[in-house]
């Protein structure tokens, strides 16, 4: 396993007046799955296209396996791409689509045949080889697109929103299926997505992008529980945010005044600074026992939403204000009603604080 298999260093890309990539660096190990996560316009697709060779960065270098590919054109890079909506060739059959890359490399039809068959078997599409691609369902089209990209044994696989064309249920199945398939092949893969759940499911590490830069690059668990910034917090998962003022700070612990009361968080900010304090909804408990390790607050129930596997309770602050808390329970206690005032709490260590 090579730790620095794909390396992007100091990449800049501008389109006219707009800077889309800003001194961006990224390093991916061999066999690793990395997601580029961010809203549209954050530069994730541009980065993907730069790695594929469909765009060239204005500055910076891209290497794969130690080989500098910055100056190579797309067709010289041997980088596989699964496009958004797949970009299958409608004038060719499934098998011809898969054979396309082999034929473009000058491999004869006879030699290509067994490799196409192998690729079809890999994605379990053996019986569909002679069909036109337009006759396939969305999930089948995705498999053909993956087979087409993999059959040439690329050094790297790039996937641009590969699940966005599928409906929700199918998407969840295909995410797991594709992940297993790519593990089996042992390829290095970069996913571009704007769906944070998808990024958490499919990747070893997630790079959250913002305005042409990587804001945080880490494993999904750390990303969820220790987001590096408010931006990352907002983008990954749900959370309750309370604005407040730091009252005191000592030994890496701050006390913050919020609309719901005073609470503590592991951070060190100057007293008097404005902060946002955030908690994940599932980290909260209702009516906790008194415990020094907990922040305990009170609020009034404004809404109870039953979501099936869990229930969300919305709480208003006792004092006037916009701030609300969302609390998530897997089981709803009996006798809870809107308008009721309740106490709730969460571990101090689960409390995240950011400068506002």
């Amino acid at each position, binding site marked *: 396993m090579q730790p620095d298999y794909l390396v992007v260093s100091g990449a800049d890309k501008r389109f006219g007046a707009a800077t889309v990539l800003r001194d961006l660096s990224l390093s991916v190990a061999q066999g690793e799955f990395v997601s580029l996560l961010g809203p549209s316009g954050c530069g994730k697709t541009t980065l993907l296209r730069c790695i594929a*060779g469909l765009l060239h960065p204005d500055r910076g270098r891209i290497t794969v396996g130690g080989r500098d590919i910055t100056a190579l*054109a*797309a067709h010289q890079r041997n980088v596989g791409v699964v496009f958004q909506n797949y970009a*299958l*060739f*409608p004038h060719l059959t499934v098998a011809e689509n898969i054979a396309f890359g082999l034929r473009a490399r000058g491999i004869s039809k006879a030699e290509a045949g067994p490799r196409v068959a192998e690729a079809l078997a890999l994605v379990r599409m053996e019986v569909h080889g002679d069909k036109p691609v337009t006759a396939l369902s969305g999930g089948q089209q995705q498999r053909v697109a993956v087979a087409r990209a993999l059959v040439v044994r690329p050094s790297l696989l790039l996937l641009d929103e590969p699940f966005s064309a599928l409906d929700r249920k199918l998407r969840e199945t295909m995410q797991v299926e594709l992940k297993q398939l790519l593990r089996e092949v042992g390829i290095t893969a970069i996913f571009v997505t704007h769906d944070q759940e998808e990024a958490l499911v499919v990747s070893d590490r997630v790079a959250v992008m913002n305005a042409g830069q990587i804001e945080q690059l880490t494993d999904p668990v750390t990303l969820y529980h220790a987001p590096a910034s408010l931006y990352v917090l907002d983008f990954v998962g749900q959370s309750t945010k309370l604005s407040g003022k730091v009252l005191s700070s000592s030994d890496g612990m701050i006390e913050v005044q919020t609309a719901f009361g005073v609470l503590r968080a592991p951070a060190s900010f100057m007293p008097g600074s404005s902060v946002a304090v955030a908690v994940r909804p599932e980290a909260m408990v209702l009516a906790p026992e008194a415990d020094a390790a907990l922040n305990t607050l009170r609020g009034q129930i404004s809404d109870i939403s039953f979501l099936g596997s869990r229930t969300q309770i919305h709480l208003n602050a006792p004092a006037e204000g916009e701030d609300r808390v969302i609390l998530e329970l897997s089981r709803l206690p009996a006798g809870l009603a809107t308008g009721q005032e309740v106490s709730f709490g969460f571990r101090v260590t689960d409390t995240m604080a950011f400068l506002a």
Partner: protein
Amino acid sequence: MERFAKGLTSFALFLTIAFLLLPIVVVIPVSFTEAPIFAFPPEGFSLQWYGRIRNVDGLLSALGLSAQIAALSTAISLLLGTLCAIALVRGRLPGAEAVATFMVSPLMLPGLVLGIAMLQAMRELGLRDAWFSLLIAHVVITMPFIMRTVLASLSLFDFAMVDAARTLGCSYPLAIWRVLVPNILPGFVSGALFAFIASFDNYPVSMFLVDVRTKTLPIQLLNYLEISPDPTLAAVSTLLILLTIFVLFLCDRMVGLRRMSSI
């Protein structure tokens, strides 16, 4: 009431088709007559008028010239028009819509006006070569047909396919050839067919540009009709009709006739 409306529209369609086909169909029996006139019903049966086609002065050479001009002008329009359409669809050209309208506008202009303008310009430039004048004038005639159909099929084309081909190992020009061209072929075929017919049939522009030795088929036919009308014309017309049917059949096989309904 409902049934009455249906009956009425069906009758109108029947009438329309009969009316449209009448002058075309009537030519066929007349071409087999023995008499040297167009009388109906035709007398007897003979192929003599088909045999005489070869003997009519300038008819075959006019046919050759028309085919040549139509094919060349269509080819040039295909090249220039496709490049222009790609630029309009992909080039983020400011005022792309105005450019498209300009390229299609010869279609909306009376043919005679175009012919007169060309004639004047050629005279001003001292250009007296009829063949060359005809060729460039016919490129103007054919351009709108190509632009319209190629623009329409290009705007439906997913250019990610070109990127896909490139990442699979095709250079940019090869990707265009392997992926773009086959996918917009129906647009090419129907555009080229219409362009070819428009050029092949053109009278009002050509009439100002021909000279004594360089005459296109419609000009020559009309001349002949005015000078010595006999069933040879019916024979030529019959052959032209058969050729048209054959070409339409071919196009239907290739791209489907109804895709061409946007005239």
